[in-house]
C-alpha cells in the first residue's frame, strides 16, 4: 500500500488570531478509509475543505498522488466530496444529477448513459433514475450523492459527516453500504465525523483531532484500547478515569487512588508521578466478595439492550460505571448492594493529562 497517496504537509489555517489548524502533518494511504474524528470546532472539516480546495491553508500544502495542490482550484482537483446535506441539484432528476460531472466534461452521450447506469447499479437505485430529488428519501438522496461524487472516479472521496442527517436505523445500513461501495470501487476515503461509533465501524485508521491538532492516530483497536491521553480515553466510548499516584513494590506496580490500590502493568513510569487510570466499564468484574480493588454500593442500574451498566458509588464518593452482560449465568446485583469491582491489570490504561 502506498503510504503517502495524500499528504498534508505542515498545514496551518488561521483566521486572524484564531488558529483553526496548527501544523498538521498527515499521510493517507491509497485505498484506505481514514477518519478524521473530533469534537466540533477541532478543525477536521477545515482540513477536509482544504483537501477539496474550498479553503486555502495559511501555510503548508496538500499533495495528492504526488501533485502539489496549492494552485489547483476545486474543479481541477481529482477529489470529490459527499456533502453533509448532499447538495443534490433540485432542478435535475436523479440521472442528471449523477451525470452532472460527465456533462461538465462533455463526455459522449452513450458513455454518459453507460457510466450513470453502472453507478445507479452500484448504489442500487436503478429504478429511481427518473425521480426528482424531492421525490426520494434521505437515504436514497445519500446514495445519489455518493454516485454523483464517485462517477468521475476521484482519487479521493471526501465524506463530510454524511450520515448526520439520517436517522439511526438508516445510519447503520448506510455504514454497511459505504463499506461495500469502498470495497467495490477501491477509492480512498477521507471521512469526517464527530461520532466515534461511526469511526470505529468504518475506518482502517482513525485520526483523533482536538483544537486544531492531531491528538492520536491509529487503528480503531489501538484508539480504543491504547488511548495515549485523557482526551483520547474519554473520547472513545465510555470509560472510568481515576486519578492517582504510581507506586511500586517488590512484586507489583499500582496506582494509589482514594479508593485504594489499582494494580497495573509496569510501564516504566517513574514512581510517585501523578497518572490517570482509564478503565472501561466492560473491564470491571462485579462481585460481592470482599476481594477486589474498589468497594462500593450499587446506586443505579441502566439496561441498554444487551448489556447492563451499574453505577457504583465508592467509599470516597467516586462513581464508577461497570458493565454486566445480560446472560442467564450472570445476575445483576440489586440497587443498594455492596459490591467489589476488580479488573485485570492489562485492562487498566495509564494516560497522562
Amino acid at each position, binding site marked *: 500500500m502506498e503510504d503517502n497517496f495524500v499528504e498534508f504537509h505542515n498545514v496551518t489555517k488561521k483566521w486572524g488570531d484564531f488558529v483553526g489548524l496548527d501544523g498538521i502533518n498527515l499521510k493517507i494511504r491509497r485505498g484506505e478509509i481514514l477518519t478524521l474524528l473530533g469534537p466540533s470546532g477541532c478543525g477536521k472539516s477545515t482540513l477536509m475543505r482544504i483537501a477539496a480546495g*474550498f479553503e486555502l491553508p495559511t501555510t503548508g500544502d496538500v499533495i495528492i498522488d504526488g501533485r502539489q495542490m496549492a494552485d489547483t482550484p476545486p474543479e481541477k482537483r481529482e477529489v470529490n466530496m459527499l456533502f453533509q446535506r448532499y447538495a443534490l441539484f433540485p*432542478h435535475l432528476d436523479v440521472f442528471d444529477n449523477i451525470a452532472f460531472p460527465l456533462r*461538465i466534461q462533455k463526455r459522449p452521450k452513450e458513455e454518459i448513459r453507460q457510466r450513470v447506469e453502472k453507478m445507479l447499479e452500484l448504489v442500487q437505485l436503478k429504478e429511481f433514475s427518473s425521480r426528482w430529488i424531492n421525490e426520494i*428519501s434521505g437515504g436514497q438522496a445519500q446514495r445519489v450523492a455518493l454516485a454523483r461524487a464517485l462517477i468521475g472516479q476521484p482519487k479521493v472521496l471526501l465524506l463530510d459527516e454524511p450520515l448526520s442527517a439520517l436517522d439511526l436505523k438508516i445510519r447503520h445500513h448506510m455504514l454497511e453500504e459505504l463499506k461495500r461501495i469502498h470495497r467495490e470501487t477501491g477509492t480512498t476515503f477521507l471521512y469526517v465525523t464527530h461520532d466515534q461509533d461511526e469511526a470505529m465501524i468504518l475506518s482502517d485508521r482513525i485520526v483523533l483531532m482536538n483544537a486544531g491538532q492531531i491528538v492520536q492516530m491509529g487503528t480503531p483497536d489501538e484508539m480504543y484500547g491504547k488511548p495515549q491521553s485523557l482526551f483520547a480515553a474519554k473520547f472513545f466510548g465510555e470509560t472510568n478515569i481515576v486519578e492517582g499516584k504510581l507506586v511500586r513494590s517488590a512484586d507489583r506496580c499500582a496506582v494509589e487512588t482514594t479508593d485504594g490500590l489499582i494494580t497495573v502493568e509496569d510501564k516504566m513510569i517513574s514512581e510517585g508521578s501523578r497518572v490517570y487510570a482509564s478503565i472501561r466499564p466492560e473491564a470491571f468484574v462485579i462481585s460481592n466478595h470482599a476481594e477486589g480493588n474498589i468497594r462500593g454500593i450499587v446506586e443505579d442500574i441502566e439496561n441498554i439492550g444487551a448489556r447492563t451498566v451499574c453505577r457504583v458509588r465508592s467509599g470516597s464518593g467516586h462513581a464508577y460505571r461497570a458493565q454486566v452482560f445480560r446472560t442467564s449465568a450472570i445476575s445483576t446485583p440489586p440497587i443498594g448492594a455492596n459490591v467489589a469491582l476488580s479488573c485485570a491489570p492489562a485492562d487498566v490504561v495509564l494516560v497522562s493529562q
Partner: protein
Amino acid sequence: MSVDFPARRFYPATVNPLSIRLPRGWGLATPPVAFLLFFFVLPAITLFVTSFFAAQAFQIVPDWNVGNYLRIFKAAGFWKANFQGLTNGFFVATISVLLAFPAAFYVVYRAKTNLILYMALLSWFSSYLVRIFAWRTILGTNGMVNSALINLGLIDAPLDFLIFSPTAAIITLVHIMVPFALLILVSALQDVKAEYLEAARDLGATRWQVLTRVILPMCHKGLVGAFMFSFILAAGDFIIPQLMGGRDGITSGLLISGQFRSVGNWPLGSAMAWTLMSCLLIVYLLFVGLLYVARLSPGRRYH
C-alpha cells in the same frame, strides 16, 4: 419525499357529503384572492367587455363589434408606439437584470450585511416624479453629463439623445426598476445555498458553468420574475415616456392613457390595453421559451 399517508377523513361519514369542503389554507388565501378578484380580474374583464363596445359623443354604446380591434390593427401609429413601448420594456428589463444580478450575487454570497440591498432600496424613499426630474437635470442639455463631457473636451455640443428621447426614458426607467429586480433576484438567490455552488465546483464545473448549470436554472423563477416585472412596468409606463421620451418616445401606454384621460374613447383605450397585454403575454412566453431552449429551465430531463 414519497411517503404514502393513509387517506385522511376530515369528517365522519354521517355528515352530508354534498356540503362543500373548503380546501386547506383557504382562510389565508382568501384576502389575496379577493384583492386580485376585485382590483384586477373584475376591472380587466370590464375593460375586455368594453373593448367590444363603441364610443359615441359622451356615451358608450354596447353594440358588440370588433371595430376597435380592426382600427388598432390597421393603425401604423399604434404599432409604432407599441413597438417603442416593447423596446423600452426589452432594454429596461435586460439592463435591469444584468445590473441587478451581480449586485444580488454580491449581497447573497459575498456581503456580510444587507447594507448594499438597503441602500439600493433607499431610492424608494423619494417620489417617482422627483426622481424623473432629477434625471432631467442630470441628462438635460446643460445637465451634469453634458457639461462634464464638454468641460473634459470630449464633445463640442451637448448630446441631444440624452434628453427627450427613448434613450432618456430607458435610462430613467432602469433607475426605477433596478431595485425591484434586485429585490426579486436576492430572494431567489437566497434559495440557492452556497453548498450547491461548492458541490458544482467540486464536481468539475468552472465558475461560468456553475452560473449556467446550477445558479440560473435554480433561480429560474426569480429570473423570470425580475425580467417580466421590469419589462411589464417599463413597457406600460406612460409617465416617463411623456416626461423623458420626447417625440420619438411615444409608447402605446401613453396612447392608452390618452384614450382614457383626454380623448375619452374608453372602448378604444380598452382594446389598446388588451392588445398591449396580449403582446406582453407573448413576450413572457418567448422569454420562458428562450430560457427553456438555453437549458436554463428547471424540471427538464436530459436523458
